[in-house]
């Protein structure tokens, strides 16, 4: 048997062991990225083989948060793809404004960059007081980071340009305080944010949302898991609720895609199709 085949087996065993030991199911993730991350994790823990990583994961439960973080890689930016945030600002928030109370679910919130971006949009639209944001992720460490809202100052320059490009009328600096090499987002921005653990692979509906933002999360999922997550979104959205995905996501292979009608397709913004009976209907 050649080395790559052997490694394939090791990855399968690792994924199974993780599921049995800690209940986290990665078996439906797209293999190429998953393998890459398992490999990186092994080298991060200085394990010669993935089997060695499996052994440590099994016997050292305190490693779990770091293992999960390594497998999910919470990489993000504030106002990433500014055109999307501009569209939310100009085309979606005005439609949400007709609701007396607005629920937004941000699934896969990573270190919270998009949560604070959303909160800023809502503040500037005068909608934040009547909005509740549910920010969820699978990784506990990511959530902790997200609730702190502290980021390297070197990222802030790009983010500040992104903010301007998204149609922001102020300066990003107005929303954070800068230290020596870190910035901290104004904690007032999270007054209506609930951070919670939620696994799109195994958990169910928990809220009735007017807008779900889930960008660059489903790209890591196999077709069947993508389909599961989309069903979950469909079942969580109010009638005519909005779904915003990452700019390069492809829904064509998911049978649930039928339940979403393109609203602003180039920005990957969809609306629950009218034939779908939603919870609130």
């Amino acid at each position: 048997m050649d080395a790559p085949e052997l490694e394939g087996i090791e990855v399968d065993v690792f994924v199974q062991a993780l599921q049995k030991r800690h209940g986290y199911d990665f078996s439906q993730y797209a293999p190429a990225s998953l393998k890459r991350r398992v490999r990186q994790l092994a080298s991060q823990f200085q394990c010669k083989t993935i089997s060695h990583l499996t052994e440590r994961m099994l016997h050292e439960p305190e490693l779990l948060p770091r293992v999960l973080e390594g497998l999910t890689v919470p990489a993000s930016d504030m106002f990433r793809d500014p055109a999307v945030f501009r569209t939310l600002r100009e085309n979606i928030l005005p439609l949400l404004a007709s609701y007396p109370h607005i629920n937004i679910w941000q699934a896969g919130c990573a270190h919270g960059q998009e949560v604070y971006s959303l909160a800023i949009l809502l503040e500037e639209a005068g909608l934040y007081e009547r909005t509740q944001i549910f920010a969820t992720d699978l990784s506990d460490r990511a959530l902790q980071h997200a609730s702190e809202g502290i980021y390297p100052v070197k990222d802030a320059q790009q983010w500040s340009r992104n903010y301007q490009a998204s149609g922001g009328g102020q300066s990003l600096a107005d929303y954070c305080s800068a230290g020596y090499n870190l910035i901290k987002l104004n904690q007032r921005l999270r007054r209506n944010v609930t951070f919670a653990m939620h696994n799109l692979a195994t958990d169910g509906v928990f809220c009735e949302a007017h807008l779900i933002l889930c960008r660059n999360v489903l790209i890591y999922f196999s077709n069947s898991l993508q389909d599961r997550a989309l069903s979950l979104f469909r079942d969580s959205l109010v009638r005519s609720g909005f779904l915003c995905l990452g700019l390069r996501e492809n829904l064509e292979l998911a049978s649930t895609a039928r339940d979403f009608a393109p609203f602003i397709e180039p920005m990957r913004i969809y609306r629950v199709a009218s034939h779908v009976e939603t919870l609130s209907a």
Partner: protein
Amino acid sequence: MMTPAAIAIGCSAGGVDALQVLLGGLAPGLRQAVLVCCHSRSETTEIFRRVLERVSALPIAEAVERDVAHPGVVHVAPSGYHLLVESDLHFALSADPRVNYARPSIDVLFNSAAEAWGDRLIGVVLTGANADGAAGLRRIRQFGGTAVVQSPADAEAAAMPQAALDVAGADYCVPLLDIAPLLNRLCLP
């Protein structure tokens, strides 16, 4: 040797010009899937695609996640994402952090393509100012694939092809103008 099934090309500084020369020389009858990873600062691949379309006999398309790598099509990695190939030859995208300061990274593409196509892959490293692609090209060779590197002396930026030679070596190290004829020879029956 088995006929190659795919060609993966990586380039950086000076890459757009080099790609025009290379793709412009590929035979229209090529049945290989061609994958292109070119570092660029632009946020879309739109203009890049149009430029290549003008010279290429093969159709140019941005690689679409979950879509299959089509024979005879040049698939360009979208900007801002790593492009990977699954073992069933479907594309996957990743928003993981930059690798070698780049996203898309040539190493990420080459590593996954090497596993997907094994000895039926040709990896090509062109001009560029960093070392991305070198480790990936080594992996392609480890899997029995063929490595083609633009002669550093001939490249607008020599660092990338030089790093590839240092780390991976090459089956062919030739000037840019000779690469398309070489690929045609390796690929056409």
